[in-house]
Structures are given as C-alpha cells and as structure tokens.
C-alpha cells in the first residue's frame, strides 16, 4: 500500500512539474492573468466605483458579493452541522 501510494504520488508530482513549464514565470508582469482586461479594470476602477482603497475588500464585498454571501452561508452551515453532530440533547 505504501509503495503504491508513493508511486502514484511521484508520478502525479512529475506530471505537475512538467506542466509547470508552461506557466508564466514567477513575478512576471506580462503574465496573462495580470494583463487581462478585468484585472486592469479592477485595479483602476475599484476606488472610484466602490470608495474603498483596499482592492481585495472591494472585490470581496462588492464585485463578488454573491460569492461572499454564499461563503458566509457555508460557515453558518458548518456551525450548524457540528452542532447537530456533537451537541447532546438537553433533557
């Protein structure tokens, strides 16, 4: 079992490192993710549109508001799930 696991892990890791050659270099300013129009739009327009200097907060609470609402619901659900699993009945 351990040998098999090691084999699987090494093969997967080698494939991922091979695929890493196609990624943009670390710290490259010309990487496609940075030069994408949406990224440049967020950096330029988030302060005038949302009035918040921290771009990450503006993204989190304003542009991706639906996502954050769902995430808060995920935390709430996790709390409820642990409560259902572990809390003893108050009799």
């Amino acid at each position: 079992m351990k040998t098999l696991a090691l084999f699987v892990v090494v093969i997967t890791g080698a494939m991922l490192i091979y695929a890493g050659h196609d990624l943009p270099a670390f710290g490259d300013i010309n990487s496609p993710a940075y030069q994408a129009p949406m990224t440049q739009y967020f950096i330029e327009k988030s302060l005038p549109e949302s009035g918040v200097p921290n771009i990450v907060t503006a993204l989190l609470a304003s542009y991706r508001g639906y996502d954050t609402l769902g995430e808060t619901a995920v935390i709430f659900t996790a709390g409820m799930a642990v409560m259902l699993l572990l809390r003893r009945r108050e009799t």
Partner: protein
Amino acid sequence: MSKIQESVIIRTVVRIMVPFIELFALYVIMHGASGPGGGFQGGVIFGAAIILYAMIYGIAEGKKKMSDSLDRILASAGLTIYAATGLACIVFGGMFLQYNAVPLLSDPALVSKYLIDLVEIGIGITVLAVMISLFFDVSPPESDVEEAKE
C-alpha cells in the same frame, strides 16, 4: 481543573488581555476598507479572545460570556444583516448588492463604502459566533473531564 488553569499568572494575564484582543478585533473589522483586515479576520480574532477565556476559566465560565442562545441569535443575525443589505439595494431600485443604487448620500462611492462596512460587520458577527460555537461543541464536556480525573 488542570494545572495550567490554576496558575494565578495565566489567569490574571488572560483577564487583562481579553478586552484588548476584542478591541483589536473591532479595529480590524472597521479598518478592513482602508488596510489589511476585514470581517473574517476580525471575527476570527474576536472569537479567539473568547475561546482563550473559555480555555483558562473553563467552558462553563465561557458560556456565561457567550451563551448558546446568544450564539445562535448572533450567527443568524450576521447572515441576516448581509442579506438585508443586499435586499435594501433592490428596494431602492438597484440590483441585489448594487450598493451605489441607494440614494442616501450625494456621492454613490461614499454610500458604497459605508454599505461595505456594514456587510463586513455582518460577516464578522457570523464568523465570531460560529467559531465560538465550534469550539464549545468540539471541546470535551466538563463533566467527562472531571470523571476521567477521578
């Protein structure tokens, strides 16, 4: 009661530290718009303060600070604040969570800023309540610990 819980130094330091950690958590939540920070971090730090208190003074003392019913109310209240902020934008004629549609101030960006702060407070309340309830649920019940010692 374990040895570390009987130490006078630890008990005193924890009692002095807890209000300051809570104050720092509120600062982190309110400062999230203009610097690093935000609802999640602030909520987790606030929760950690009460968890620290409950670890040293016992779960029963901790539950006096944050009872189960208060915990449940806070966890739902935070989510309700968030959703109500989104619905208020619909009431004023915008889309869900379209902050700048609310015509409260002259500058739409300023309205957006204050509503983002409100949303962060909602996230913070939910996160702190859920983190505290997670700790209270996962930690061993005090009666079991006493039995195991005897």
